[in-house]
């Protein structure tokens, strides 16, 4: 069963007289519970694809069906709600709020889901413990290492129990040790049944996933499945 179906997706940017086709009639689907990696050279459109998949951006044309529903019909508020409840997004640059503690950062999606303070804090503490940060609950991001920050970001992505985890080069800013810890967490999540889609530049990491999609110039050029 496909959680995500992209049909003939185009994302173009007008740059003066010319247009850049960041996604060029891309058709691809993702099955539920799979750990997929997306690879490709720089500028090939990976981040653009992730942003569309993560409901952060709307495609210029084409059809995006998420869990059976056509996203194109969604209002901005419905998209916000989808990001909040169905998708956990992990960024390369963590994107934590520097003034908030780890717990507050992790609890943020629950604020917008309308969960009360007490429950929010309990769930955020649990999520941080799950990613091995039980000792750093009330630290601010700038008091943590890159690997720890990314684990906070993952805990935040998981807090609202989304079906799909999306990560755009989650280990791009991390050393080998932290990278392996992060991948380990993704593998565990995948074993728990979550759909994971990850962009990466590192072939070794892609090798650890169940499916490798290669993109170039906004087009799918290779789709490799392994079990």
């Amino acid at each position, binding site marked *: 069963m496909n959680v995500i179906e992209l049909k003939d997706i185009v994302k173009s940017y007008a740059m003066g007289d010319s247009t850049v086709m960041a996604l060029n009639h891309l058709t691809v689907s993702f099955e539920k519970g799979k750990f997929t990696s997306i690879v490709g050279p720089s500028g090939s459109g990976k981040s653009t694809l992730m*942003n569309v998949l*993560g409901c*952060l*951006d709307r495609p210029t044309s084409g059809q995006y069906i998420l869990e059976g529903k056509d996203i194109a019909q969604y209002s*901005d*508020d419905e998209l*916000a*709600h989808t*990001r*909040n*409840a169905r998708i956990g*997004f992990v*960024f390369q640059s963590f*994107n*934590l*709020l520097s*003034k908030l503690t780890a717990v507050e950062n992790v609890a*943020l*999606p629950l*604020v*917008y*889901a*309308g969960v009360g*303070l007490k429950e929010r804090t309990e769930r955020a503490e649990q999520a941080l413990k799950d990613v091995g940060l039980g000792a750093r609950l009330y630290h601010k991001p700038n008091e943590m290492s890159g690997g720890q920050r990314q684990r906070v970001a993952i805990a*935040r992505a998981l807090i*609202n129990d989304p079906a799909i985890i999306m990560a755009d080069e989650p280990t791009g800013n991390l050393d080998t040790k932290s990278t392996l810890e992060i991948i380990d967490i993704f593998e565990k999540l995948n074993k728990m049944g979550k759909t994971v889609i990850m962009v990466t530049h590192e072939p070794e990491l892609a090798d650890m996933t169940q499916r490798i999609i290669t993109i170039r110039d906004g087009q799918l050029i290779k789709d490799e499945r392994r079990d």
Partner: protein
Amino acid sequence: MLRECIKMAFEGMLSNKLRTFLTMLGIIIGVGAVIAMVSLGLGMQEKVKENISSMGSNLLIVMSGGRTANGQRIASGSGAHLTYDDAKAIEKNVDGIKYVSPGVQTSYQLVAGNQNWNSSVQGMTPNIIDIRNYTIAEGRMYTEKEMTSRDRVCVIGQTVAENLFPEGSPVGKTMRINKAPFRVIGVLNSKGQSSMGQDQDDIVFVPLTTAMQRLMGLTYIRNITIQCENEKLIDQVQSDVVALLRQRHKIKTGDDDDFSVRNLAEIIKTAQETTGSITLLLAIVAAISLLVGGIGIMNIMLVSVTERTREIGIRKALGATYHDILLQFLVESMVIGVTGGTTGMILGTIVSVIAAKVIGWPVVVSILATIISVLFSVGIGLFFGLYPAKKAALLDPIEALRYE
């Protein structure tokens, strides 16, 4: 959600204390100024009312010379004048009168020993001190008898006493009014400044007839002050006086009066209109500073939105809707508005109480002005916060996240 927003707003304010303070300063000064100005204006109005009624209530003033329809006085040199007999006739024939006090007044050079001074010399009947609420500090007031016999005696105010007789009591001493010698028989208690800023102690009373005949060489009087028994009688007394004087002056029906009657209620009304418009003017100036304060809030909120573009992007990526972001920034600008407004209200009240005490006006704290200006500062927070908040809420998540 609202609780989070308020918490976030306070945290944001505390994280940049100086900037928050400077932003608030505009509102603090604005609200403070409105409250201080309005309450000072009201205090002034109150003081004017007090002063005018301290001149004596229920007063009518009859003056030589008529008034045209639009209130202008016709030159009083037309020959028709009020006389002392007019005053006596009014006292005798009109009911409901407590006092009738005819008067003449001119400024004269006063000399005593080697001191000299310039002051208003008023020829009055002895009852003037009751009518104008003066009291005698030392000595006595002149009598009816001294008036009939045109004695050269006078009663002086504190300012005159201090300037002409710097040492020792003036009572019993002689001073020259326009070179003619007068004996000082009494000194008045101080009454301070009038609402018009006049020194009410810079005054010399002499018997009316003495003033007319020995000082000014007049056969007529300038004005007659009438005090009615009570306020309700004023209109009745006024029309009786007019009828009587028309008859005595032989004015034909249809012709204009050759005198004019004004009542104090009218004067109070005019004075209050004047002070009222001064208050309004002050309030408007203060309100403009409140507006400027509001623009300050908008400015800082716009800076804040730009600075926090990335934060907005993150919040939106995590599921914040348009309304969530709008609420967050609106609450922030309103917290600035309310905090500034409350501080301004407290400061404004303190300032107006102190200022009123210093100037000597009654302290009037206008509850209405307080409520309005605090509500207004909330409104200003809302109004000037709305545009920046909308700008924030409309940001595209991807573009906001890319913002460096």
